[in-house]
């Protein structure tokens, strides 16, 4: 029962981890919003770097150092192309999306947010898109406003416009796709609206970039953050995209080697973009490995990935809805959501459910999903969450549904 869009049988062969058995049963991985599995090409790319051209970049003149530098910078070019940025200078490698948000809050934020200013977030933000702004706001005596979401997780654009009309509003920072509900917000509309009031928009793309075609020129976002490990790449690599003009005006974040042009006893001239923001030896191996992930995704095509996930989500929601005491969260309109389904089953706590599913070798996420503000809004302490990627199949959803039946039996629902 293959998806009409993707040859999952073929794809699955590229992922060694999917051959594992846990508790004697085939491994079903449904926690892709947390991190994705890695194809052999990514793993081999990293092994190959360490085996044959391990060296530091941007410094030495010998051959393998040039190979390493070339491979590292090639990834930057691929990222640039993947999100359709104007220039590789607008692509900054960080440790993860979280660090990318922190980079902007520490530099741009401290230069531009002042006493009495407002930062606009929403109730469905990940902690990483709340806490850095909270710390900044406290330091500067600025305020944070949270756009409310309705019961299906959708924003009210009238409320946004209300804040945009407030002269104190200085930044909008929103996730394009909610990591807990999967809701996709009308980000293009929001950016256009914000720009009519000259307010910059930071897009947390941690969940959207791995699953949707991203075009920063067409979106016109001012910043975009995402993580390699949520899109087949290695952990330890995040990306900050920023418009060149804005990045140029920003102070450095972490300081040290590689981010400088000249250092004297009294002062330092900083390096050009993007190196100004990449101090010290970066995560060379994993950045290089990420290039293979981008190649893999490009080969399949982001549109096909999106269609595959819509198909799986539709199938899963249909099957899950048939179960008694099933509470599903998020928007029913599949066009407004990604391949993420948050739910609760009767009074079974998500952690208990995850424990039961683990015995069926099914990996799901349970808890507050680093979105406690959202959990408060939904008035739950936690939800269970499944999330899909290119290798997931309808068979796996059937296994998952059967295991839910087992949980219903155990808890005598």
């Amino acid at each position, binding site marked *: 029962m293959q998806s009409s869009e993707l040859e999952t049988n073929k794809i699955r062969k590229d992922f060694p981890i999917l051959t594992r058995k846990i508790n004697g049963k085939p491994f079903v991985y449904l926690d892709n919003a947390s991190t994705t599995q890695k194809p052999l090409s990514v793993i081999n790319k990293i092994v190959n770097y360490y085996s044959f051209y391990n060296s530091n970049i941007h410094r030495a003149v010998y051959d393998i150092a040039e190979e390493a530098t070339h491979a590292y910078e090639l990834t930057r070019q691929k990222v640039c192309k993947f999100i359709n940025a104007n220039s590789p200078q607008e692509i900054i490698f960080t440790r993860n999306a979280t660090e990318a948000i922190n980079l902007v809050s520490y530099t741009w934020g401290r230069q531009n947010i002042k006493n009495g200013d407002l930062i606009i977030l929403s109730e469905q933000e990940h902690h990483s898109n709340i806490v850095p702004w909270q710390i900044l706001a406290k330091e500067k005596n600025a305020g944070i406003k949270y756009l409310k979401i309705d019961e299906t997780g959708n924003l009210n654009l009238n409320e946004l416009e209300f804040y945009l009309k407030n002269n104190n509003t200085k930044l909008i920072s929103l996730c394009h796709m909610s990591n807990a509900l999967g809701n996709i917000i009308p980000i293009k509309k929001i950016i256009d609206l914000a720009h009519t009031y000259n307010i910059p928009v930071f897009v947390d793309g941690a969940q959207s970039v791995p699953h949707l075609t991203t075009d920063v020129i067409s979106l016109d976002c001012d910043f975009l953050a995402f993580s390699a490990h949520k899109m087949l790449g290695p952990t330890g690599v995040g990306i900050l995209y920023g418009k060149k003009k804005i990045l140029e005006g920003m102070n450095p974040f972490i300081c040290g080697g590689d981010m400088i042009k000249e250092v004297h006893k009294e002062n330092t001239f900083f390096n050009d973009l993007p190196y100004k923001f990449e101090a010290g030896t970066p995560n060379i191996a994993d950045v290089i490995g990420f290039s293979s992930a981008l190649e893999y995704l490009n080969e399949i095509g982001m549109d096909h990935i999106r269609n595959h996930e819509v198909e799986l989500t539709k199938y899963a929601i249909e099957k899950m809805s048939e179960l008694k005491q099933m509470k599903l969260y998020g928007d029913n309109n599949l066009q407004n959501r990604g391949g993420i389904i948050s739910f609760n089953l009767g*009074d*079974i*706590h*998500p*952690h*208990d459910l995850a*424990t*039961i599913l683990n*015995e069926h070798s099914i990996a799901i996420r*349970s*808890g*507050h999903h680093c979105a*406690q503000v959202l*959990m408060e809004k939904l008035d739950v*302490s*936690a939800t269970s969450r499944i999330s899909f990627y290119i290798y997931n199949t309808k068979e796996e959803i059937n296994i998952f549904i059967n295991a839910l039946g*087992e*949980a219903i039996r*155990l*808890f*005598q629902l």
Partner: protein
Amino acid sequence: MSDDIYREIILDHYRNPRNKGKIDNADVVIHDSNPLCGDQIDIYLNVVEGQIKDIKFDGKGCAISQASASMLTEMVMDKPLTTAKDISKDDVLENIGLTNLGPARIKCALLSLKVLKMGMVKYYTDKEPTTAEEMEKDSNLF
């Protein structure tokens, strides 16, 4: 294994928790949570001459954390508060009948014991600071 964990007694304490609620004017109120899961436990204590005269817990979380808290309140009701010092992790796990929990879920089972021990230390910090320090040192849950 799920059948071993989610036995009748766990489900009973989860759905019909004993000593659940708040105590007005409690001598000690203490709260902690498990950042991994978001399980939350508040413990309210009334202490008379060193004896736990009343204990209630409030909280939200998984069956293991809530059933464990419920059973712990029954275990220490009317006992000296210092009993909390001597209760080990294994005592709690044996009490609830879950001795082979994995590292992730064991924190759920032990959260209420941690909160009770914190409550004991808090109670004695005002009255006998040196005793409280000793207790804090003795306890391996902090």
